[in-house]
């Protein structure tokens, strides 16, 4: 017998299985194109309202490439980016179940923990790639259209171009880590239901719900425990004196949620009867 279980469903094999899917191409393509869409939208828009004092947040976007990326993060941060993660993780097990191919993978046998781990690794890789593709494209588009100027943060701080690129990298990394709670939730939902849409939708809905609750100021400090509370904390990095507190809180909270949800997912998948 030549079967070695540690060699089953290697990363490359699973990646190949996922890469050929149309939804993978569509999702990465859409994310890459969004910055272009924004640029075109700005081009069509009316000139900023002269009656208004100062400028709107969107006006800031057109100042420089780093600002454009920051604007992109704000536009995409609440919905598009969590959806990317929810899709890649929500489909891991549920779509195999819906194709009935899950049972054949398990009968190879790929041990269940290993199956979940390999799937999560590939989903994580694809998510991170897509999440990072977005700022990369936005940056490129920004440099072409708006030039390589200083980053002007909403807090009125000007960060020189070179430093702002570093800040953008940190912000991008933060966003990837911050969304880990979505990954954990989508994974748990994915092992719990056979419909991939249900798992993806469930994770996205949870994000929306968390944002709604976060908007209710009456909840006070309880909101600090909502997973989306620190969604935009990366903005702190665009400042001369970086205060890491909010970002550290965000990372801790997200990783904590991710750990709990992933642990539940593993336990659930380990004991589950596969009937699809």
């Amino acid at each position, binding site marked *: 017998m030549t079967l070695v279980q540690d060699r089953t469903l290697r990363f490359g094999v699973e990646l190949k299985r996922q890469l050929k899917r149309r939804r993978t191409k569509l999702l990465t393509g859409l994310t890459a194109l969004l910055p272009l869409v924004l640029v075109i939208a700005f081009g069509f828009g009316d000139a900023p309202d002269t009656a208004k004092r100062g400028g709107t947040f969107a006006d800031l976007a057109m100042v420089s490439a780093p600002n454009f990326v920051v604007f992109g993060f704000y536009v995409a941060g609440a919905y598009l980016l969590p959806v990317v993660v929810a899709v890649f993780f929500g489909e891991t097990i549920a779509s195999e179940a819906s194709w009935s191919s899950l049972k054949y993978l*398990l009968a190879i046998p790929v041990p269940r923990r290993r199956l979940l781990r390999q799937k999560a690794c590939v989903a994580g890789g694809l998510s991170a790639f897509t999440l990072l593709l977005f700022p990369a494209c936005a940056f490129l588009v920004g440099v072409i259209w708006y030039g390589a100027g200083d980053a002007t943060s909403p807090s009125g701080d000007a960060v020189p171009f070179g430093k702002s690129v570093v800040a953008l990298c940190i912000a991008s990394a933060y966003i990837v880590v911050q969304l880990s709670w979505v990954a954990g939730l989508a994974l748990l939902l994915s092992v719990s239901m056979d419909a991939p849409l249900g798992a993806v939708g469930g994770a996205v809905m949870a994000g929306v719900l968390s944002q709604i609750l976060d908007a209710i100021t009456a909840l006070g400090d309880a909101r600090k425990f909502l997973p989306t509370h620190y969604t935009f904390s990366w903005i702190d990095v665009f400042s001369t004196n970086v205060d890491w*507190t909010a970002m550290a*809180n965000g990372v*801790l909270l997200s990783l904590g949620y991710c750990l709990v949800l992933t642990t539940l997912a593993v336990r659930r998948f380990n004991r589950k009867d*596969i*009937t699809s």
Partner: protein
Amino acid sequence: MKLQLTRSRVVALAAAVVVLGGATAAWASGGSDPQAKYRVEDAFIDVNGVSLDTSLYLPERTPAPAVLLAHGFGGDKHSTEKDARELADAGLVVLTYSARGFGESNGKIALNDPALEVTDARQLVDKLAQRKEVQLDGPNDPRIAVSGASYGGGLSLLLAGTDRRIDALVPVITYNSLAEGLLPNGVFKSSWGGFLYSMGVNESTEDVCGRFTAEICKAWTEVATTGTMSEETLNLLRRISPASTNTGVTAPTLLVQGEQDTLFGLDHADANAKQVKGPVQVVWFAGGHDGAYPDEKLRARIIGWIRYRLTGQGENPFGAFEYDVQGNITPEGVQSVRTVRVPDYPGVHGNPRKLQLSGGEQTIITPPGGLPAAISGMPALNSRLAQTPISSLFGMDLPGQQATFTSEKLTAQLLVAGSATITLKVSAVGTPGDGVLFVKVYDKDPNGNRTLPGNAVAPIKLPPLPQDGSPIEVSVNLAGIVRPIENGHELQISVATTDQTYRTPTTPATYRVSLDSVEVPVVPGVATESPFPVGQLLGIAGVLVLALVLACIRRRRREDVDPNLEHTPLVIQGLAKSYKGLTAVDGLSFRVERGQILGLLGPNGAGKTTTLRMLMGLITPTSGTIRVFGSLVRPGAPVLGRIGCFVESAGFLPHLSGAENLRLYWAATGRTPEEAHLEEALEIAGLGDAIKRRVKTYSQGMRQRLAIAQAMLGLPDLLVLDEPANGLDPPQIHAMREVLKRYAATGRTVLVSSHLLAEVEQTCTHVVVMHRGQVIASGTVDEIASAGGATSFAVDQPELTATTLRQLGVSDVDIEDDVVHADLNGVACGQAIAALVTAGVSVSRAGPRVRLEDAFLQLVGEGS
């Protein structure tokens, strides 16, 4: 999704919560205790000829240092209640009071007259010194700080300047000189003046002087009616302003001034900072008379400062100087603020940076009567207005009344912090008029929108202009602001002739003004170490370590192998599976030997598929064991690698072709491609060119064949096929039978489940009949077929045969054309044939009745 809270799940959850909780405790510092840690004594205290309404806040632990808290103009002791509570919570004795002329206190308002209000406060300090709860530095010398905002801030400076017992003071948004506050450069700030006057008169007042003293009332009347001050008024205002006593302030001073303050601007704090003799720290915060009171964070730091100064405990929360920078509106619609910390206080003129201005010489007019007048804001409402859509209505410059001088577009952000200075060249055209001008600094964005930072306006009263129209130069300090002027924006200086906030000159006049540069104060901050979130980082590390530990826990269960069964492909013993009371498989036992083609036969719902799923480790049996080559089958058991299976339905990635599916499936096993025997499998699938099409496009039969091919990849020792004939046409079924027979002939084993009796009969060597989750028969196909004991006789005379057999005591005689079936009931077959022959029947064939269907129906029972 069903969430069952099993014990283990609760344990996992609890472990994670503990980690999270431990980490979050680090930053969610405990909220303030709802139980008040102090008590309050209200009393009227007679001092200096008046009776003052006071509240004394006594903390739990006394004696403690004290704080005298004075209120703002128009307020009373209740307006400082919040601050008092916060200070008392911090363990300090706090005395708040309504100043004379305010609240329930009697007396008249004398605007912090040293002989009146200031003496009142000094006598309150005496009273505090008599309280046993107050810590003393010496006889009649309490350990005490004095604080207050605006009017109260003025009092704190005046008191500290005249009373050496004061140990620390925090004047907030207060003035240095009332004359400069109300008549900056001699131009009357009429809007604010009226505002303050209205606070000194209440509804019951019949007298125009309201609650003001006669002296103040007279001065006010003079200023309000003429817009100018007599020497007498000037002397009065000098006497009651901190400027006159500041040199006596030797205690540590924390000057907190607002950046949104058109009443007492940053220049007042600057003047105070320069005059006082004690150690000074200066804070410019994003607020003021036009904006907000110091927020919770800043108040907490101020309290920390007072505690530090009075008790020596903790650290000084402030450096020499810090200022807030208000940024843009964040996407959440909140104004963002950051704080710049500076090691030295450079003064309100900062480190000047010169900007060239273009605009040349421009002519402006003062309209007759000063109407219409430019609008620069609404006193006290500016910051609230700025957030409304009508804010643009409160910023208006009028054509012909304004000259503008603009810088080049900035190439980098310019953070203006303080008061800019200009040297203006002015000449009169015709009669010089009143000689009053208003200078403003605008931030002009690339779209031409102008913003007036802090709504700040600097009025100037020009020296007498030469009648001949020759120019004079005047140096002007503009109002102090903090404003980041962005890259691409322009800085614009506007020189106007009217402004509604001030008493606008009424004499018509024309001026020629020119300006070629401005000195802008720039105060670079230092990178301060913001407290590193150590607790959170430890928490993150904890989460990561826990994740690593959880990932490494492997229940390496030893493989459970029965060596006696090492060569037996499959042994099932006492297998049972029930779902919520419904029993699908109930005590199933059978075994399969090498080289067999075993048919698992049973009607739909007999439990065949459930059994096969358990065999693949997809579902866990309720009880019983399955051993494959001696190894116990569990989810993920390595022995599953020796099984090739096709159960219930084909499972392929619809976006890949048939060939890619097989190739990737094999790749997923991690075994070498040579082991796969892919070509043979493809031949079995018989899909031809369709193998290159995406599986999405396949028919049911094609998927079925591909799935069987997949099961045979790698030529597994035990091949398990569930209803393989479904969806195949007769030639394909025939071909498949041959394939299976050849497969078994190599010594491998095949397990086929079916509900089609003919199929099992023709394909299998052995059969296990299942019904309601139990084995009801097993053996070779022939054994099962004859298990009912029925025998068939092919004869020429069926009727006679039936009669003869019945006479032998045989039952269930059944005639079917030329064949008679009968249950011999123990009668030997030979005996029956002999009897038939004797009766003259020609028997062409006799033997067990081989129709499995009959046996099957008999086994299963009627009506099932």
